[in-house]
Structure formats: structure tokens, C-alpha cells
């Protein structure tokens, strides 16, 4: 993952609530074996309208998306995060996110910024004409008009994002602890530790 500290630019004033990942990327686009090119299918139904926000000259390629409550609900497909990245979106601001989507976004270096609805309403207004800046280090969203909205973020996620850390590499460095757990679990809960035997039985 690449390090990220600030996202600044035009923000798409989308505003919808309960935007599910089927809307972000319909299932027919999931038949790929790579992460690339998802932008073609991103928000496909909405973008079939020629006047849609995502392709308007004003907002095409904007790095920030402003959405309503429960953004990214539904399917666990990480393709939703890849689709946003392929559109150029590297931050989403919303009153709430689905747990799985916010995890997927984080793993791809996309900021998910939670702000109260009143702040969202104000940013939706500003976004019509002016840029928005998200600063991760200071955990604030600002506009050219003295708006300053602080946001919370998990400390570990912030650390990983700011330093571009590879979570798998971090965990692999804990290999000793994992082996220790496996050994104690094998003694305490042997039925969970050993499917090899049963799998062998099954195959035979």
C-alpha cells in the first residue's frame, strides 16, 4: 500500500444513503482475475444517465466522494474499492460505512472519513463549487471557507495509511506468536486444529 497523508480536490456531491456494493460495481464486472479496469463498471446503472455526476465535466476524476449513511453496504466484494480507485476516488466522506467496505477501502489506501450529517450537508454545499481537503495527520476536513471538521480514525489504520505499511508483512513478522497459538490451540481444541485427518478420510 502506498502512503497517504492528504487528499485534496473536488468532491463529488453524491449524498445517497445505503449505497450498496452492487450499485458501486455490479456482479457481471466481478468475473475478472485481476484488480484492473474496474472503473468501466463503476456505478454503471447511475452512469447510464448521460447527466450523471461521475462523468460530468465538473466532477469527472474528482478524488473525493461524499455519500449518505451506510455507504458500501451489502456484498464483501473488494472490487468496489478497486472500482473507486480506478475512477480516481481515493477518499469517501459519509455519516457511516459498512464494516466490510471500510476495511476493504483501508487495505487499498482509500480514506473513509466519518462525519455527522450536518457536516456532510455543509460539504455537499461547498462541493458544488469548491474543493475539499482531508488531512489524515491532523484528522480534519477543511474547505476554503474556514470550515474545519475533525474526524476519528482507528489509530492502527492511521499508522498504516500514513506509513504505507503492508499488513500481511506485519502479521507474517508475528509468525512465532501464531505458531505458539496453534500449538496451544491444538492441545486445547484439537477438533479445530486438525481437519487434515478428516480431509484425508474424505478423500480416501
Amino acid at each position, binding site marked *: 500500500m502506498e502512503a497517504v497523508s492528504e487528499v485534496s480536490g473536488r468532491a463529488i456531491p453524491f*449524498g*445517497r*444513503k*445505503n449505497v*450498496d456494493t*452492487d*450499485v458501486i460495481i*455490479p*456482479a*457481471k464486472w*466481478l*468475473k*475478472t*482475475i*485481476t*484488480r484492473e479496469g474496474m472503473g468501466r463498471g463503476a456505478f*454503471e*446503472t447511475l452512469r447510464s444517465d448521460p447527466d450523471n455526476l461521475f462523468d460530468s465535466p465538473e466532477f469527472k476524476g474528482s478524488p473525493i466522494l461524499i455519500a449518505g*449513511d*451506510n455507504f458500501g*453496504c*451489502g*456484498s*464483501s*466484494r*473488494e*472490487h468496489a*474499492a478497486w472500482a473507486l480507485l480506478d475512477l480516481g476516488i481515493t477518499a469517501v466522506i459519509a455519516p*457511516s460505512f*459498512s*464494516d*466490510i467496505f471500510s*476495511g*476493504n477501502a483501508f*487495505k*487499498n489506501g482509500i480514506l473513509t472519513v466519518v462525519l455527522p450529517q450536518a457536516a456532510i450537508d455543509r460539504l455537499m454545499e461547498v462541493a458544488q463549487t469548491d474543493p475539499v481537503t482531508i488531512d489524515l495527520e491532523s484528522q480534519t476536513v477543511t474547505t476554503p471557507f474556514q470550515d474545519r471538521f475533525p474526524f476519528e480514525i*482507528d*489509530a*492502527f489504520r492511521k499508522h498504516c495509511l500514513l506509513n504505507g505499511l503492508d*499488513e*500481511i508483512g506485519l*502479521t*507474517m513478522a*508475528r*509468525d512465532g*506468536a*501464531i505458531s505458539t*497459538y*496453534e500449538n496451544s*490451540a491444538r492441545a486445547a*481444541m*484439537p*477438533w*479445530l486444529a*486438525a*481437519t*487434515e485427518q*478428516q*480431509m484425508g478420510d*474424505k478423500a480416501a
Partner: protein
Amino acid sequence: MASKPRTLYEKIWDAHVVERRDDGTCLIYIDRHLVHEVTSPQAFEALRLAGRPVRRPDLTLAVPDHNLPTTARRDASGQPIPITDPESAQQLAALERNAPEFGIRLIGDADIEQGIVHVVGPEQGFSLPGATIVCGDSHTACHGGLGALAFGIGTSEVEHVLATQTLLLKPAKTMEVRVEGELGPGVTAKDVVLHIGGVLRASGGTGYVIEYTGSAIRNLSIEGRLTVSNMAIEHGARAGLIAPDDKTLAYVQGRPYAPKGAEWDGAVAWWKSLTTDPGAAYDKVVVIDAADIVPSVTWGTSPEDVVPITGTVPAPADFADPSKQDAAQKSLDYMGLEPGQKLTEVEIQNVFIGSCTNSRIEDLRAAAKVLKGRTKAPNVRWAVVVPGSGLVKRQAEQEGLDRIFLDAGFEWREPGCSACLGMNPDKVPPGERCASTSNRNFVGRQGPGSRTHLVSPATAAASAVAGKLADVRALAAN
């Protein structure tokens, strides 16, 4: 000193902590990893590029389900029938290549055990009470019906689990959804979870793991409990849980991967301790009276858009929240419905009985019971039953259910995800309606422009006969 009372969730969590970091993040051990063809190719590719092996292939099981066509897979001579969609074929081929390369057991499309991962896991005894179970699919919540801590993950997390058999997680908040009382006639597990979705809304469970409790939940069969827990994600909860009991033990015992002998005895002793202690506190409690639950149906494009089958389509003005008013109007436009319209007057053109929510043998029996001696209405263009696995299919055929479906004008298919998600050839055409036993009524979910009404298998069957969304209780009375 007595230890602090704990919820079921906390007991399973505590048993799986590898390491706890100062900020509260825990490295959690994963006992079972189910892999399917859609969300795994990029994870395997990343492992290959980094030269990383799969840490515990023996705890991993691969099953194709999303892309597979549900039409015949072998011709008369037993040769595979090629999949016409080249992208689907490529993705399925990738799983068939990746599984052996990384030493993972694969249940292939020609195996009798093949099916939807969330049907296969419990059926094979791969999914166990008290286990942590993940899969790159949000309906992994399903396995919580056995008392497992099971949740969906994205592809980066699939890669993380393949490489390390762990995940970095923050503990969730806990919610009890208690359903007390007896369910009325014609009211099924699906109606229970649809009703709960209407109460909690689509994001009421975000950040929580939901434990479903109460006499109405305890009285459900294991398959019914899998149906309820399956849809925890539709209230925003990553996982659902139902405490294991004697029914759970009877369900698990003797399945191919289930523990045996002394290991079985040890497992049972632990599983019996997996209940929420008296005095343990949930972060939130929601109590529902089972008597309030009737056969339910969705009218809109979010699983929270639930009404009783006896009800009418709501008007946007019925909602207090202005953003919901706007969403409701968009849903009505998409669904082609008018406020005040009776649900039982809504004509349907398609009926889908299947999906990880409702494709087990009891679901098929419930639908067949309604359809026996009846036929689908002429306006129902496409009616299809897709068993959740090859074993469910074989069982149903042994019971003669396939004949009942075929005589009623239904198609009888091979197992897979089918028309739940518009990814394989089974789709609902634009503008047409489907009474569907699946789990999501999102815009375009069953195909571009498709209009989905989520219902139970019994309601789907009754609706096929009526040609409209129907109250199964009225049909049963005839």
C-alpha cells in the same frame, strides 16, 4: 473469584486471540476458510508474486459457486459441457488451478458435494460451533446459525488469511436480538429475519455482532437458524450468532469433517459452554414479539423495505427521515409500484427458489408442500428451483420433490448461486418482477433492471401459483 460474565461472542473471541495490541486491535486466529472463485483469484496471484505459501491449506476449502451455470454440467457421455461465458470459464479455471497449486482441497463442479459455499460448509461438517470462519463473501454470516463466529471478508483479507491464518480485528459491539413467543402458521425463519431487518434497518447492526436469542429462535431448526444468521449482514452486522444446543450437536455429528471419538467428546464439552452467561451485558438489546411477525415481503430496493404480505406499498411521506423519503421515491420508481397498492395485487413474472439463504432441504420441502397438486400461474414466465448443493438435490429427488416442482411448471437445476446475484446466466429480465427467496433486493441485483421481492420459500411457491405476491396462509386455507 468468579470470572466476569461473558457473551457468546466474547467467549469465541477470547478463545481465538493470538495477540492483543495496546490499541485494542487483536490478531485473531481463523479456524476455517472457505474460498470461492470470485473473490480469490487476486489473492492467490498476490501470494504467487510475493512467493508466499498458504499457511494452513488443511483449514481451507475451495468450492466454485457464483459463476457456475445451473444447467447440466456433463453431457450424456459424462464429458464436461464447456461454459460459454469466457470470463466465467476463466475465473472457474483459475480456482481449479490455484487450489492444487497451493495444496487446498477443492470440491469441483462435478462432485456431488459441490454447492453454495454456505450450504456446503455446514453440510460437510467443515463449519463447526465455536469456530472462527471466514470467506470472501458477506453471507458467511450464515454459519453463525451453528454458533460459529463467521463473517465475510474482502480479497485483501482473503490473502491475509491464506498467508497467516489470522486477521487483524477490533472487537465488535454486541447486540442481542431476542424473539420471544411462538411463530404463527405460515411464518418461517425467513419471515423472522425479514421482519428483524425492518426493525433494525439496513445499518442498525453496523459495528455489532448480533446474537439471536429467545424461544422463537431456539425453536427453529438448524436450517432455519442458518437462514436467520445468513441475513445478519442485511442489517449491517458482519456476523450473527445463535448459541449451539442439542439440536446443533445432532446436526453436526457424523458429518464428513466433524470431529469423531474423543475429539467429539471434547468438542461437545466446549460447545455446551458456549452460551451467554447470566449477567453478561450486551451493548444493545432489541426485543421482538414473535406474534408480531407475519409472512413478510420487501417492496423496495433495500432489505429494510419490509412489509407484511397483507400490507400495502408505503408512500415516501410515511418516512420521517427526508433522505429516506427521497430513497423511497427512487425505490418506487425503480420497482414500478404506487403507494397504497396492496402487495397481494402485485403481479410477478419470475419465481426463484434458491440462494445461500433458502436452498436447503427444508426450504425445498416447504415450497413443495405448497406446490403439490398445483401449477404456476400462466403469467409466471420463469420459475426455477436451484438446490444449495448436489447433496440437497439428491435428497430432494429421493423424496420426489423434483417431480412436484416439475409438475408445477418449475425448472429443476444444478446447485449454485444462480439468480441471487446476476453473475451467471440465471437472471431476471429488465422491468420484470421476481418473488425471490434470496437475500438482496438491490437495484440490478438479479440482473440489470430486475425487480426483486424477497420472500420465504413458502411465499415464493404460493406466489407462483397465484401469479401475484401471495399470502401462503390464504392458499393453505383453500
